[in-house]
């Protein structure tokens, strides 16, 4: 850079004229910025996972979730559904109060949304379908949410590994979560920078979508190469060792027992 003298500065810099027009339309970027900001903050704070004492090993937890959801979907007997509800409420007693409030709030919202979708079918098939559907959907939602609230991400990965998912999948899942934070942060800062330079009406606002996501992809390509080199330099070879979780059979049994009881009732008790 050659040193410039004062009289080398162009005239337009020396003038301060700020009568440029502005654009009144709502910017599509601002809402997305807020959206992504919320995503990032929810990912950044480890979701206050509450550890329930009598937890089984990760693999067993996952199996228990799958069996429970499968049973709920299969069962059409109202009494059995009621028993499942009671077991669920009993499990909820072990959450701490803050978690419980959060759980109830998102459970109710989720159930209301699900029931809204199904209400039109009242005129097609009658009230019993609507009721059954709402009850079962809210049960499934509750189970899924309970799992989510009480399981840290790492445990999900361990559970998937215990269920013999290929190593590659596990690795991709682990990397993806890190990348979501990283790329999300990058995207957020991009949008902030874009916001600062959006001073009026942009003739081609949608072209920017191509620019921002395209640039994000291209930067990531280069980053991926460097990241892999860094991983290899630290001894990574693509294989995850199964961590032998201390086999606490009692806890596994306690975790699985509600599901097994309901399963037995379902199989043996045919109305």
């Amino acid at each position: 850079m050659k040193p410039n003298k004062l009289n080398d500065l162009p005239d337009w810099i020396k003038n301060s004229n700020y009568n440029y027009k502005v654009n009144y339309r709502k910017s599509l970027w601002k809402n997305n910025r807020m959206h992504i900001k919320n995503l990032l903050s929810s990912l950044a704070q480890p979701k206050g996972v509450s550890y329930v004492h009598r937890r089984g090993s990760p693999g067993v937890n996952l199996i228990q979730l799958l069996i429970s959801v499968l049973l709920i979907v299969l069962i059409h007997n109202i009494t059995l559904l009621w028993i499942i509800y009671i077991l669920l409420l009993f499990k909820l007693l072990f959450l701490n109060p803050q978690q419980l409030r959060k759980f109830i709030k998102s459970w109710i919202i989720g159930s209301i949304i699900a029931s809204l979708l199904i209400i039109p079918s009242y005129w097609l098939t009658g009230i019993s379908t609507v009721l059954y559907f709402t009850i079962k959907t809210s049960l499934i939602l509750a189970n899924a949410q309970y799992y989510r609230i009480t399981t840290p991400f790492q445990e999900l990965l361990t559970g998937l590994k215990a269920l013999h998912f290929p190593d590659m999948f596990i690795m991709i899942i682990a990397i993806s979560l890190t990348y979501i934070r990283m790329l999300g942060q990058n995207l957020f800062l991009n949008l902030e920078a874009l916001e600062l330079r959006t001073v009026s009406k942009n003739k081609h606002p949608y072209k920017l979508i191509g620019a921002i996501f395209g640039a994000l992809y291209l930067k990531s390509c280069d980053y991926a190469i460097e990241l892999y080199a860094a991983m290899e330099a630290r001894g990574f070879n693509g294989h995850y060792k199964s961590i032998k979780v201390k086999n606490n059979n009692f806890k596994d049994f306690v975790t699985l027992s509600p599901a097994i009881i309901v399963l037995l009732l379902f199989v043996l008790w045919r109305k």
Partner: protein
Amino acid sequence: MTLIKLKDVCYSYPNTCGIKNLSININKGEFLCLMGANGSGKSTLLQILSGLKTTDNGQYFFKNSEITEKYLSNNKQRQKLHQQIGMVFQNTDVQLFNPSVYEEIAFGPKQLGLSQNKIIKRVNDCLKLTNCEKFRDRIPYQLSGGEKKRVALASVLALNPEILLLDEPLNGLTISAQREMLNLIRELQEAGKTIIMASHNYQQIKDFAQRFIIFKENHTVDADLTQIDIKNSPDRQKQLMNL
């Protein structure tokens, strides 16, 4: 003329504090340098001044209008603010998203409704001022760190803002490139612009900035001194050299 008034401005992040109880006035045409260790609140202050963040409590006045969440939710007011305040980020990578350097610099002026000739002149002038002419057709994100900084500065200059916020603009530049950039910034100040720069390299800027605001590690202001005050105080100089 006082352009910016900050009264008891505070900002905190979910897990840490950003700034605590900051009250300063900034006049038109000043060259102000924010100094302090990493994480002491310099970037946070610049983001509040640019309107990207709003103060938790306390007040921020720009030309006698209070900048609040409500003020910024009005498109017209927000865009007017962005026309007058330009910011160069610390991480210039995120600031560059156009397919070529030329288009990056032209991005701002195109929105202002200028004629095609004026836009071309502005872009060429900015390219010349920041010495980016040789890579005008290259892709910004593939440039080196120093080149990116120059392109970012050029793209902000093209909007001709009244106030320039620069977050550690000298990072990653060679010593001679730093000197040239500081010369350019000083000329811009002499042409009437207000410069607020965050830096932790006192040695480089001690002869350029006229006023220094020093942040403590607990995110409050340690001192607000002029260039001469610091030069007369060897202790201060020692403190700043060791940042």
